[in-house]
């Protein structure tokens, strides 16, 4: 590495890390507040129209953040797998006076369709918000921001390590499954045979993982994880800006307006 690139690299770490998109660069806490407020707006709104509008807004936000494609793919899958089923079950099973299509013991009624529509759009707006959260909010940035406002590093460790452990342990489990197969443990056949394979695959993986926590505890302690002083980090977050304030205020005002409107009875 030449002295030039070295100083450039070092300099990059002295500045706040940018993800190259104004939306993604918002403070993670502002993003979480905004998404939560929009979910509340959807749940508190009376009909399916406003709820669907929130869902569409989520898609627009995802596209503005440059994550539109994968977000749309996920959310469409959810609509087909969850939304359609929720709607169909309600349309078929909710009893009503106005029968549209009689189908033997059950029937499609106007009330069922109405009920299904309102319920499905509400649930899907919640799903859309949660999916958007994980699509545009980086867990590492969020936990870093939370640590900065005083959350315990132990709490953020538990959250981040959970994600990491799922990946790691899943990998190990698959390796052990293949290894045990090679040693002749049957993983095909009837349910009992397959169930018996469960123990020799998982027991060693889980016990090893539990034993490894001891080493992890020592490793982290060696890095002063338990120090009562403020932890340092390699990455710097951009400080709270006017843009963040605007996002939070607009979202909160919208939420309060809809909830108040519902309570007071504007609609």
């Amino acid at each position: 590495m030449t002295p030039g690139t070295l100083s450039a690299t070092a300099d990059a770490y002295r500045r706040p890390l940018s993800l190259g998109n104004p939306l993604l660069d918002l403070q993670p806490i502002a993003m979480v507040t905004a998404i939560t407020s929009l979910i509340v707006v959807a749940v508190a709104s009376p009909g399916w129209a406003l709820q669907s509008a929130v869902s569409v807004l989520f898609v627009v936000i995802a596209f503005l953040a440059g994550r539109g494609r994968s977000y749309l793919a996920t959310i469409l899958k959810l609509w087909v797998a969850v939304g359609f089923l929720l709607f169909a079950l309600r349309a078929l099973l909710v009893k009503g006076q106005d029968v549209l299509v009689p189908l033997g013991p059950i029937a499609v009624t106007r009330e069922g369709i109405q009920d299904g529509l309102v319920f499905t759009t509400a649930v899907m707006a919640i799903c859309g918000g949660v999916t958007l959260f994980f699509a545009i909010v980086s867990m590492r940035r969020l936990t870093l921001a939370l640590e900065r406002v005083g959350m315990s590093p132990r709490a953020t460790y538990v959250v981040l390590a959970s994600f990491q452990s799922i990946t790691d342990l899943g990998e190990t489990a698959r390796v052990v499954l293949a290894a045990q197969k090679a040693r002749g443990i049957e993983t095909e056949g009837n349910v009992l045979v397959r169930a018996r394979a469960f123990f020799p695959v998982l027991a060693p993986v889980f016990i090893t993982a539990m034993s490894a926590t001891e080493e992890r505890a020592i490793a982290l302690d060696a890095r002063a994880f338990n120090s009562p002083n403020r932890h340092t980090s390699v990455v710097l977050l951009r400080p709270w800006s006017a843009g963040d304030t605007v996002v939070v205020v607009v979202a909160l005002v919208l939420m309060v307006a809809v909830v108040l409107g519902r309570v007071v009875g504007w609609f």
Partner: protein
Amino acid sequence: MASSGFTRFMQGYGRLTIFMIPIGVAINFVGGQIALLLKLPVYLDSIGTILVGATCGSLPGALVGLLSNAINSITSPPTFAFAVLNVAFGLLAGYFGRLGVFRVWWKTLLSSLAFAFIGGFCGALITIWVFGGLAVGGGALVVGALRALGMDLTAANFAAQLPMDVLDKVPTVLIVYAIIKGIPRRLLVKLPLGWVYLGQRKSGTAKQVPADASRA
């Protein structure tokens, strides 16, 4: 500043518990994944909750349950409505662990009924209250079928969920029992409820690893 609420909350549980919680979450997931991979007709996705509850105590177990459902809701947001069940599994496992239930295989087996009751009965209640009796997943189709046969919606929910949960919790607690049997003694001694499985009377709190300098 470092001694925030979470730190104080975890203080009674010894240093290792913080590291066991992510492992518990991962065990929940991997258990479910392998059950799918082996095409078993059960979920097996609460092994970690019950395991951490049984070895570390109620609150860590509940935390594992809450985190697992929160992470699960990334791909399937409706799961979060059922988080309270997984939290209850953790709390109950901690209580059972303290009583020494997981030391004896037949007591462990009996405990599965309690877990299945929470999972099946309360699960059905949540399905009825939150989703009006029509949630998503494999159970919903069974409910729909029972309903089509003329069964009441509430009855259909209980009829579909209770047996499924017994079928799920029996292998779950047996695996927990087997894993606890397999945990090396040198690890057990450092876990908050390890004394139960080492056949000792409670000797103060768990041993601290590593030496605790920050609390002075």
